[in-house]
């Protein structure tokens, strides 16, 4: 059953927004996989989070085309907008989590930002400010 581990972690994460200590324990008990091994897999893949996630996830694409289109500045602006400090990624009210992702595969739309499962194209500081109002 070990080959289902990644899938199990994905399920746990989609249910709770992150992989909790309890989820790791439950998977370990039910499938007989050592906790250390589960932790090893969970920390290897960038998709998995071990801390609670905001209700909305903003993924700022940091692929090549988006980099050339200024996505680093954009990511910093969004973090500033939400009042996030250097090592924070989630707002205190758990409304937003900001992540930088390798590439969303929408290179012609650069800079691209994905909020939850929606991709937004040619994002600017002004346009994202307006979009964020729509999320609760």
């Amino acid at each position, binding site marked *: 059953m*070990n*080959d*289902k*581990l*990644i*899938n199990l*972690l*994905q399920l746990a994460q989609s249910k709770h927004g992150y992989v909790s200590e309890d989820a790791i324990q439950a998977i370990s008990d039910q499938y007989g996989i050592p906790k250390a091994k589960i932790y*090893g*897999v969970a920390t*290897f*893949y*960038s*998709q*998995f989070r071990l801390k609670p996630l905001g209700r909305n996830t903003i993924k700022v694409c*940091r*692929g*090549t*085309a*988006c*980099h*050339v*289109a200024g996505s680093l*500045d954009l990511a*910093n*602006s969004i973090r*500033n907008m939400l009042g996030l400090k250097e090592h924070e990624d989630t707002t205190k009210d758990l409304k937003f989590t900001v992540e930088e*992702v*390798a*590439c*969303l*595969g*929408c*290179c*012609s*739309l*650069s800079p*691209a930002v994905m909020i939850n*499962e*929606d*991709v*937004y*194209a040619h994002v600017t*500081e002004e346009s994202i400010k307006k979009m964020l109002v729509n999320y609760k």
Partner: protein
Amino acid sequence: MSQDKKIIVTLGTCGISAGAAKLAEELKSKNNVTVKTTSCIGLCALEPTVFVEHGSKITAFSDVRPGTKDVDLLVQFHKTGTLDAEFGKKVIYDGDRTKINEVLFKGQKRIVLRNAGWVDPLNIDDYIARGGYSFKATKEQIFDVVKNSGLRGRGGAGFPTYKKWEILAAQRSDEKYIVCNGDEGDPGAFMDRAVLEGDPHSVLEGMQIACFAAGATKCFIYVRAEYPLAVRTIKQAIKDATVRGFLPVPVEVREGAGAFVCGEETALIASIEGRRGMPRMRPPYPAESGLWGKPTIINNVETFAALPWICTHPGEYEKIGYKNSKGTKVFALAGKVKKGGLVEVPFGLTLRDLIYNVGGGVIGSGVFRAVQLGGPSGGCLPDSKLDLPIDYEALKESGAIVGSGGAVIMDDTSCMVDIARFFLSFTSKESCGKCTFCRVGTTRMLDVLDKISKGKATQKDMETLNELSEAVSKLSLCGLGQTAPNPVLTTLKYFAEEYKEHIEHKKCRAGICAALFVYEIDEQKCVKCKACVKVCPVEAISKDIKIDQAKCIKCGQCFKVCKFSSVLKG
């Protein structure tokens, strides 16, 4: 309304983000309008695109905005044939359906993308109507056709496809696996996403052909979790094709979890097995001992998608192409290029033709600086190399690679040192940490590049960078480390003067490396509107409009907001 009159809306990830899904809903709500939705046609820069089909005649529109008068004007044209003069400017094609490729996709040869935009990806009958799932032949015939076609793996390395199959067929085992690699991790490449979203059945049919020829007993499709639409589409396609009995060899989807290194075949296998995706030494090659120790071969999405066409057109694929690179390659054109999107061109076309004829030329400042090919394993080529043909061997010799087919075009607002640093920061983050040269080497290389971009490097650092590049490429375990220095080596080779400027003159000509320039106010031009004061996130601009350099983080907000060009960058 007769069935042969319909409006087609293309719903790829690009189109949806430009508003195509809303547009389709709006059109469906109108009376007497037949709306059909398909997937990405590759014209990402022109989305949302709409095709009005009247029998054999097609009129294509770009940039049709939902919630505007565009919608009614489109419906009016669809029903009555009357075209509003202003709206008519959005027409990108008007004529016979058979000629549309020649106009919209000038210079291209669409094989992998043959169905892109023309089939509803979730409607298996659409695929069947275009000749899908009809191919029948013996194993020997398939081997012959694929061998003669010269098809090489499209994932990057370019290993002859039939050879992998031959090795698999020769293994003795009760179980043999074929894996479709859809872990498209290269920043800058999105053809696998588009094919999985837009024409999933051609991938499934290609996989079945491969399974039959090479004797596999089960298939897996490994898709990145960052592509939710692709995952949903391929899963639905598998269900539909299974019901119809088109998948004698069962297919299972496995979602990746965000690790670039999983594009490497042994790491991908570890990931499917539910382990940390770390590569291992080869041999044994996966074709001998792969998934759960059973013989396994791994091919890319694009390779599988090309197979049904190759098999139904024996003798034709090898006529296209150049030397040992036969057939076509899909490129994802992005960056400062006019017609960004997916294009499929024959091998042998020059890079210049790819960028200027197929891509429509450079936008932004309009001054071409470099093209980055092949992502983090590839390299940056200058104008002097644009007459090279697209060919596995020719590009490899230049230091770049065909790779997965990402092509990011840059104008003179890009700094080559910054680009090298960008890729190294990517590879050092994505290094799985197993071997020392990749783990430590890429980090040390990044340190040096950081120093250069801050204007603190010396000639000695350049020697270190060269030494590290050589060591990392020679001594790393897998392809990730072996190719990680390529972006550095190519920029050092072709853009040496930029490195020199950073080191000797502490200058970044593109104005990207923040430590090497400052923002200042031109007091002659400044009208004291205070727009810059308001946008500054760190309150570095005083009320009398002076920038406190100690506080300034060089975010460039003041530069962007100033309408009087009185913020100077230098």
